């Protein structure tokens, strides 16, 4: 990503925190402006981040962090978006109306981390069998009594 685009981004994404020393430009957004700014990234003519190829969550024990990997298929630049989420009541606005790929990715994050995506059209378990609602296997405090792997 060129310097101009980064400068343009810094101008556009208000109240955002930029991380230093990362391979790709990484920026943490504020929850209140999140949805609006993501839509801007998707639609802005100079940015056109039309390819959400990865969306995941990290459990930091104190809080959760949503991580979005974006790419523009036209300009081929990439951007990492982060969003801190409260661990006890994780709620994030859905992006499935902006990128269709978010639909499945968010369902996966929902069952693995228990993040509630507000406005998601079909928030059900995708991978886990019925009865696993609310167990959130990928959180750090999850313990499976039988199949836990330890080395």
């Amino acid at each position: 990503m060129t310097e101009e685009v980064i400068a343009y981004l810094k101008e556009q994404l208000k109240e955002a925190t930029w991380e230093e020393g990362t391979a790709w430009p990484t920026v943490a957004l504020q929850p209140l402006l999140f949805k609006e700014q993501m839509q801007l990234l998707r639609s802005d003519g100079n940015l056109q981040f039309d390819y959400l190829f990865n969306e995941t969550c990290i459990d930091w024990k104190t809080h959760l962090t949503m991580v979005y990997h974006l790419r523009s298929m036209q300009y081929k630049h990439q951007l990492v978006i982060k969003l801190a989420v409260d661990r006890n009541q994780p709620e994030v606005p859905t992006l499935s109306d902006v990128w269709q790929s978010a639909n499945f990715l968010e369902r996966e994050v929902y069952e693995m981390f228990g993040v509630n995506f507000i406005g998601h059209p079909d928030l059900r378990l995708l991978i886990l069998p019925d009865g696993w609602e609310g167990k959130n296997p990928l959180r750090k405090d999850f313990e499976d009594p039988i199949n836990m792997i330890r080395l």
Partner: protein
Amino acid sequence: MQETIGHSATGDLVINVGPQHPATHGVLHLVIHLQGETITKVEPHLGYIHRSIEKMCESLTYRQFIYVTSRMDYLSAHINNLACALCVEKGLGVEIPERAQVIRVLMSELTRIASHELWWGAMAMDLGAFTPFFHAFRERESINDIMEETCGARLTMNYMVPGGVMMDLHPNFQKRVKDFLQLYKSKIDEYDEMVTGNIIFQNRMKGVGYLSKEDAISFGCSGPTARASGVSCDVRKWYPYEIYSKLDFEEVIETGGDSLARYMVRIREMKESIRIVEQLIDAIPEGPFQAKTKAVLKLPKGEFYQQVETARGELGVYIVSEGGTTPYRIKFRSPGFSNLSALETMVKGSKIGDLVAAMGTLDLVIPDIDR
């Protein structure tokens, strides 16, 4: 799940395709709603082979976790391993000897050919032609034999390690690869005779499972699936790793967006892979096959992302490190997962036979989707 038992609320016939079904090539479960023979809704239910590899990797060291990833997309096991090795190397900041790089690319391309061979046979079988399957296996077997000789395994090779490859090439390697190239070239025309030129096959493929360019991007499709819709997304070209930037090969792009385009992309991709192998097989540089690394690897605190092009599309490995010997969080961005999410858009309104044709050309590997 009441609605999966009989009829849906709209009176459509609800059929469970899978988890045991000949067309799903594994344990994929699709709930399809039918109006007569016409599909009105497709709903994938995943997880029948979910092993939570991401959670497992959190308690494995950086040397160990690579072996688990062979079991994700088992048809491009080499390339999975390569992605992990590259990501770890990125964190370590190790330079890889040139010989190791060439070996890695050679192995990746052979894996890609083998994977596409299997896909070709399996897809033809989905369409009801059994014979191509055996013809595809003839060539695939010789690749597997080459792999077995050098890596000691035929399917889950576990050959890539952080710093290079596990051991040097077998002395026979070059000769056998050349034999394979010769065999392959003498047989490639059979493929067109048996399948591509067949009028029934063309009718089954043309205009079936259409995916527009916009949808392909929006659904996060990658690999041949996206390239058949005209999306230029070859990681080897755009974000070159290893020595791909020095090689002469084309990114295969078709604009049809239908099953036939996806078929043609893969067929042409095999030929490109052959080209790459031909360029490298006589130019394997001498030197060490592995860089010197510490016995216990520790990645610095930070986040590392590496994407590679597997036979199915873009595989991403996202490692979050806290500075220890094990990853704090690891995420695999699997190509099949995103490609599968586009399935409903592709087949809505078409017949059951089209669903099979579309799934066949998506080239789904279920362990890759479930992880």
